[in-house]
Every structure is written in structure tokens, then in C-alpha cells.
């Protein structure tokens, strides 16, 4: 009985997600550390789902990392976000999709702040006008990029070449979902499933044939902590939080972790490398870690995109054990080649197997 209640708890938190015509805002972290991911997201939206999504050369950061580290005030962040809304308005769009979860939290927070403190909206509109001469309309619909993959999960499912099923045993793969804190912990009603039972990634697992892993620290923060990670002297905070999650999920033998926040994806990947170097501890089997993918990387992989064309070699944790379980054919020799098949020197090997 308890399980039934829990499984359906997410249904009370739904939100409107527009069908089409989005202005796209890039992420600082995703662009750098998973540089093929946003291009893949746009390809899936445009080519697989035939949606209109606009990639603007004039967009910038939302400044979220600086704001959450205390080096700029919220007024500056709201001013930069107001400029993004102005670019959206100028491009003729009314719906706004954000690649970063920190940004999604801040865009949402800006709109909520302006509802609660209308004088702040007036102040920021005037500041933007003085600074840039720009004006803007508010977006009619504001979503995170994972919301779109969730909304169209059934359409994507109908095109999948592979499903989240072990090719050797026929059993569903065990998949951990990790939701970035700022997706729904600040404004639960803005997240699919809310803060307690977020369904935005779990819905992909269910639809695409996998099995969710419900482990004790499922809702715990990855440990980014903004200024706690940015400073070398403070990073123990970050790795400790990720370790707490990894230790908690290990007994459930996950085949894969997926995350919707660029920072969380990065930390769950890179701290596995660090923990292996520091303590010799490895969370997967046969010297490999637990692969960590973004939602668009998972969608792309199952849709049949070549893993080395969508940047999966840029994860520190090797994805080959996952590819083998999924039955995806790949050429290991292509993993570290450059464009046009150019042979490049391999990365330095580490205790955590990369190849």
C-alpha cells in the first residue's frame, strides 16, 4: 500500500510545458564539461521531434554561480535574466527553455520575486533600459530542458533503437536518477513530481524500460555547494556529499546514474575518479565506475547516436560497461580519435578504468 502511494505521489505535481517554439539558454558547466550535450539536445528536439528551438548568439550566462557564491547581488542576476528575456522577445519567442538547473531555479525565482515584490520588477526593467536600452515581455512558459525530454518521452520511446534492458539477461537495467536541488527544492510546484518525488527523470526510466533505484540518499545534494567547490581548500565538502550518495546507492548495484543538472552530472562522474585515487574505492564492477549520463545523452544513446559522436568519451567514468549491457555496438578504437578519424594520443590511464 505504501509503495502505491509513493509511486503515484508525483502525479499531484504537474506543470504546463508548451508543445513547441522555444528560446534556448545554454549552461556554463554543460558547455564546457559535456561539450557535445547541448548540440545533441538541439538535434533531438529539431530532428527527432521536429520542434522549433532557437539558439541565439547573443545569449550569455545567467550569472547563477557568481550569485550563489556571494560575489554579485541578486539584482545583477535579475538584470542579466531580464536581458535574456529581452533577447527572447526580440527573436519572436514566448517560451523559454533552460539547459542548467541552477539557471532554471534563478529564472523561476526571478519571476516569483517579481510577483511577490512588483517594485523589484519595475526597478530591474528601469535598470535594464538605462544599461542597454532594452525592454522585454515575460515568458509565457518557462521550463528546464529535462522537462521537454520528459514531455516527449513517449514520442522518443517510439523511435528508440535500444531500451534500458540488459541485452544478456532481458532484465531491466537499474538506473539511479539524481535531480539537481534547484530544479524543485526551491519551488516544488515548478518541478514534475515536486521536491519529494520528482518524476522528471524517473519518468524516462519507466518509459524507456529501466527500473528505478530507490536508495536512502536519493534526494541528497550532490555537494556542489557553489563556493564550497570553487575553492580548492573547500572541496572536501563537495566530494564528501557525493561519496555519501555513492556509498548509499552501491548496495543496489546500479547500472547507470542519470542527472538533469550539469553540475551534478559532473560531480557524480569526477568524484568517482577522485575517490578511486584517494581511497582505491571503485563503485562499479571490474575496475569501472558507475557511468553517469545527462538526460539528453541517455536519449541520444538509446536513439542510436554513436557514443563517440555525442561526447561520451569526455566522461571520466567509462561508459563501455553500459554500452555492453545495452547491446550497443561500438568501436573502442574510435573513442579517442579526433575529427575525420585523426589518431590522438590516449589520456593517461588511471586506477579507475577509462578504456
Amino acid at each position, binding site marked *: 500500500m505504501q509503495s502505491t502511494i509513493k509511486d503515484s505521489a508525483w502525479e499531484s505535481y504537474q506543470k504546463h510545458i508548451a508543445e513547441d517554439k522555444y528560446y534556448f539558454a*545554454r549552461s556554463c558547466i554543460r558547455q564546457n564539461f559535456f*561539450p*557535445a550535450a*547541448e*548540440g545533441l539536445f538541439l538535434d533531438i528536439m529539431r530532428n527527432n521531434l521536429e520542434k522549433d528551438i532557437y539558439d541565439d*548568439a*547573443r545569449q*550569455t*550566462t545567467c*550569472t547563477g554561480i557568481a550569485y550563489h*557564491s556571494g*560575489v*554579485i*547581488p541578486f539584482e*545583477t542576476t*535579475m*538584470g*542579466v535574466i531580464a536581458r535574456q528575456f529581452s533577447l527572447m522577445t526580440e527573436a519572436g519567442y514566448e517560451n523559454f527553455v533552460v539547459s542548467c538547473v541552477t539557471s532554471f531555479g534563478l529564472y523561476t525565482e526571478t519571476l516569483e*520575486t517579481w510577483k*511577490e515584490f512588483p517594485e523589484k520588477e519595475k526597478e530591474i526593467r528601469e*535598470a*535594464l533600459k538605462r*544599461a*542597454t536600452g532594452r525592454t522585454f515581455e515575460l515568458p509565457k512558459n518557462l521550463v528546464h530542458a529535462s522537462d521537454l525530454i520528459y514531455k516527449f518521452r513517449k514520442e522518443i520511446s517510439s523511435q528508440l533503437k535500444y531500451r534500458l534492458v540488459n541485452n544478456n539477461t532481458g532484465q531491466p537495467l537499474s538506473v539511479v536518477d539524481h535531480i539537481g*536541488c*534547484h530544479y524543485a*527544492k*526551491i519551488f*516544488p510546484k515548478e518541478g514534475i513530481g515536486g*521536491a519529494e518525488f520528482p518524476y522528471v527523470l524517473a519518468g524516462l526510466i519507466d518509459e524507456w524500460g529501466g527500473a528505478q533505484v530507490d536508495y536512502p540518499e536519493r534526494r541528497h*545534494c550532490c*555537494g556542489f*555547494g*557553489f*563556493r*564550497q567547490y*570553487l*575553492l*580548492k*581548500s*573547500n572541496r572536501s*565538502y563537495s566530494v564528501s556529499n557525493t561519496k555519501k550518495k555513492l556509498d548509499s546507492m552501491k548496495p543496489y548495484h546500479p547500472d547507470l546514474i542519470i542527472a538533469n543538472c550539469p553540475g551534478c552530472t559532473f560531480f557524480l562522474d*569526477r568524484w568517482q575518479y*577522485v575517490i578511486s585515487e584517494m581511497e582505491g574505492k571503485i563503485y562499479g564492477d571490474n575496475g569501472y565506475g558507475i557511468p553517469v549520463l545527462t538526460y539528453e545523452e541517455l536519449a541520444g544513446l538509446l536513439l542510436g547516436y554513436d557514443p563517440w*559522436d*555525442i561526447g561520451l*568519451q*569526455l566522461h*571520466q567514468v567509462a561508459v563501455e560497461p553500459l554500452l555492453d549491457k545495452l547491446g550497443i555496438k561500438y568501436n573502442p578504437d574510435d573513442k*579517442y*580519435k*579526433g*575529427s575525420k578519424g*585523426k589518431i590522438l*594520443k*590516449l*589520456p*593517461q*590511464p*588511471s586506477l579507475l578504468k577509462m578504456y
Partner: protein
Amino acid sequence: MELLKELKKDFRFIEGLKACISCGTCTAICPAAEFRDYDPRMIVESVQNGNEADIEKLLKSDDIWYCGECLSCKTRCPRGNTPGYIVQALRALSIKTGFFIFSEQGRKQLAIKRTVGDHILKYGYCVYIDEIDTGMYPEQGPVWDWLRENRDEVLGKFNTNYNKSGSGTLRQTSEESLGDLKKIFDETGGTERMNLIEEFSRQAANRMGIGFSEGRDDYFMEVYEK
């Protein structure tokens, strides 16, 4: 300066503090409290009591810099308070008053200003591949060294627009867009706060006898690494 009066001007403070019943739920859920000697409940209790000396002590302490701003406390507080927002207001006031240089954690703000803050105005994004190496960020691992050493080849393979004009991943942000960012920073207090961080940090460096100029100088390395 009346510190509580200043805090009450900050809408983050107004939003963050309704009426705390000191139940400790925020501390129970807090990732920072789990790994450090940090207690958000005590911070909220201090500002709710409104004692000026206690607030000044907080502004000069490491305590207000331990929060990771995950905002799990906002979800869980049964009375609608947000300790994370209160911490944001305290950090802002600590920089405005210059009290941040009295604590080891507070002094670290300079390193964040000179990385993330300056990157925004230089690249249009908080982070950019050219500025990140495994000396500063060893956890990036061998795969990052490989990407950096082969960045033109590899980023070309993924159809990015690295360091070029136009749209796309890792493109060069135009001068016009960077100019807009700078003007917004000037208008909304971003430039003022970043200048205050530099100025008070210079005073701290002089007092501590550590070299201070710009970029990764001795003071930067001191606060970044130790």
C-alpha cells in the same frame, strides 16, 4: 551602521525570516551541517534575537560562509523560513561592511571574484575551458587534460563553435553582449560588490604581509588553496 536595520532592507532577509520556532529541521537536512561545525538554526536564532553584537560577530565569522546554497532548507522549514536566504543577506552585508576579511572563509571571496566573477565579464559565462586546468582543478582528471591538449580537434568533432563568433557551444561572446553585461553589472550593484571585494582584500593582504596585485597573485593562492 545599525546592522539589523540594514538586514531588514534586504528583500532576501525579508523573505527568509518569518518566525523561526527553532525546531532544527534546517540543520537536520543541511548538507553543510553534516560535514562542518555549522548550524543554520543558530544563525537564524541570532538574527531573530536582533542583538547587534551577535550579528556583528556573525558577519565576522566563518559560519556564514559554510552554506552551500542548495536551499534544501527552503523545502523543509515547517514555518516557511529560508535560512539560505538569510545567509545570502548576511554575506552581502559582510562584504558591504568589510567584515568578511575578518574570517578565513570570508577572505576566500577574492578567489571566487577573480575566477567566476571576472570570467563572466571576459567570456560571457561563469566557466570557460581555457581557464580550467588540472593544477587548479585536479579532480578534472586525465580526460580533461586530453580534451584541453586536443581541444581544437575534439571540439571540432562535436560541432561546437569553440572560440568563434556566432551561435553554438563554447562560442566567443560578442563585444556587444559583453558590453551589455558590464553595463548591467554597473547599474545593479554587481560592479560595486566586486570592487569592494578587491578593495577590502587589498587591506587584508597588506595587514597580513602577502603580495597583492591581480590575477593569481600570492594572496589569491593563499585564499584559494589553504
